[in-house]
């Protein structure tokens, strides 16, 4: 590759993820100008990454203001916790099963009671 083909690739090559780096890198090994240019791009990329730890100082009271705005309860977190807790699943199934069973027994008992009432009242109704 020639310089004019390699130069437009340097901004991306500085990050070290260029697919066709092989051919470009061969050129860079023998061309001091392109190699120096790549060094400048790498400096830019590295220094930009380092800016992440260069921190601005917020105004006094900022932290307290942020904390005071946090809601007391996180309903989503609570719902998520309930939905993902296996013990709560078993408890819910047990309680649900008990309620269904009790309802079924109550209905059967009521039906049987009504039948016996009808049977007891039957002869009087015909008089």
């Amino acid at each position, binding site marked *: 590759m020639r310089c004019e083909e390699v130069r437009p690739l340097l901004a991306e090559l500085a990050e070290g993820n260029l697919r066709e780096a092989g051919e470009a890198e061969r050129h860079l090994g023998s061309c001091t100008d392109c190699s120096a240019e790549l060094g400048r791009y790498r*400096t830019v990329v590295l220094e930009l*990454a380092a800016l992440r730890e260069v921190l601005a100082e917020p105004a006094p009271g900022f932290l307290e203001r942020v904390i005071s705005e946090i809601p007391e*309860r996180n309903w989503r977190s609570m719902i998520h916790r309930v939905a993902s807790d296996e013990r709560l699943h078993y408890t819910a199934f047990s309680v649900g099963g008990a309620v269904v069973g009790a309802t079924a027994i109550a209905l059967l008992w009521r039906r049987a009671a009504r039948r016996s009432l009808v049977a007891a009242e039957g002869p009087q109704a015909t008089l």
Partner: protein
Amino acid sequence: MVTHELLAACRRGDREAFEEVVRRTHRHVYTQALRLVGDRLEAEDVAQEAYLRVFRGLAGFRGDAQFETWLYRIVSNAAMSHLRKRRRFGELVRDSLEEPRELPSPVRVAEEAVDRDSLTEALDSLQPSLRVVVIMKDVYGLSCREIGDQIGVSEGAVKVRLHRARKRLKEILFGPEARDEM
């Protein structure tokens, strides 16, 4: 910065644990917001909104990604929403191909060294559509795809802007003899 134990406590709904997360990260969050919106008061609003989103979203954070990466993504998102509300989002989407002809004096001290203030000034001199992309990608490590989704342009357009931003920064920092890219 933030441990797994602390995050687990937050997911259990422990408010004090969340306050500790805020204490440990607030300067990072504020700084990122400031870099993206460029105003101290607005950066505070963005940081506040970002923490509310983090608070609501922590239950669903599975820990596949690093917490910091997730946090940076949320702050970027909150900053973009803020700029949309303030009707300043258009300047990020509109990409002027016209670069200022004049370059400031080079600030290079040596080929391999760039001082941080000069880099920050160079970043501030970029047009918004380039500045936001290079900050999200090179400073905070978001992917080109994520950036495209956040600012509403294609991944390819993000890569082109990133290339132009790096080239421009290199020209500002290292001077005219390094600007010919044929």
